[in-house]
């Protein structure tokens, strides 16, 4: 079977360029975890890679680890400090090399009071809407994004609904709602 995912042995140079990178592999898919400050450098690296140029950005999404029940993140315990933990969110980037038919996954943690990372729009224009969606749902800012607005929700929506501290049933109606059971009684 052909290997679609770039694994450790395919990219020896990524470990030389980024000594702090960590790697793990599950189900035949490699995941490279880097510091959020290195994102700009790794975008340069991936876009201009000699053997596997990543010419397509497939997806950007994020994960909120607020609940802290994850064995690999024992530092997330108390709720108050978790809210502004520096590693609360994981940003997940998926890249695809059209010419080589290879994929790679990059994860970077971010957090703090105003989580912000560098925008990848300069390298891949597909990032425009993807980053707007991550901003919409998780409230992670992308610096140097040309037009960082909400993309799915309406302008007057407050908060970011996919954050774990957003109330599960927190509705924000735009018009006064009827209450048919009450009105018809």
């Amino acid at each position, binding site marked *: 079977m052909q290997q679609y995912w770039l694994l450790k042995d395919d990219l020896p140079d990524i470990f030389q360029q980024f000594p702090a990178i960590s790697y793990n592999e599950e189900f035949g898919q490699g995941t490279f975890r880097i510091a959020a400050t290195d994102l700009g450098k790794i975008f340069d690296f991936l876009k201009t890679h000699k053997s596997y140029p990543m010419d397509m950005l497939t997806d950007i999404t994020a994960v909120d680890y607020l609940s802290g029940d994850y064995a690999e993140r024992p530092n997330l315990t108390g709720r108050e400090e978790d809210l502004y933990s520096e590693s609360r969110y994981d940003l997940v980037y998926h890249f695809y090399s059209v010419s080589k038919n290879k994929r790679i996954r990059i994860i970077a943690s971010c957090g703090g009071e105003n989580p912000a990372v560098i925008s990848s729009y300069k390298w891949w224009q597909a990032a425009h809407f993807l980053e707007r969606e991550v901003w919409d749902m998780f409230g992670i800012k992308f610096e140097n994004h040309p037009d960082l607005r909400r993309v799915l929700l309406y302008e007057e929506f407050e908060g970011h*609904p996919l954050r774990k501290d957003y109330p*599960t049933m927190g509705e*924000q109606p735009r*018009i006064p709602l009827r209450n048919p059971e009450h009105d018809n009684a």
Partner: protein
Amino acid sequence: MPEYTLPDNIITTKLDQFIGWARSYSLWQYVFGTACCAMEFMSVSASHYDTDRFGAAMPRYSPRQADMLMIVGTITHKQAPVLRRIWEQMSDPKYVIAVGACAVSGGFYRNYATVQGADRIIPVDVYVPGCPPRPEMILDGIMALQDKIRKTKQVL
């Protein structure tokens, strides 16, 4: 006084019943299709099931020409003002059918985005449950609405 009979080609009725009969068979519809139920609705309005049999075969793409608003699919809070305005633009008498679990009650969505039933925004005459409803159920809903129109006092 001589006994007086009408000729065979004249039928007597009450004004309310007559208008109700006419209105129930000319349901021009505005289809507010927002989700997967709209696919189901397409098969209902196509020739196999055929809403034309009930006089509801004229989808109007302007609410000002429509009598019946069919809400076919999930209503989100982002859309709520749009649906409200469309209903306000329809001229009286106007009827509303909510088709599918999401339009009836929000369905299985209970989150930041979904309105818990179209009747939170506008009054609804007939609810057709199902996810999605069978075509027969939508036809049954139209027939229930016809029945309702015939039985109500007609506002002129």
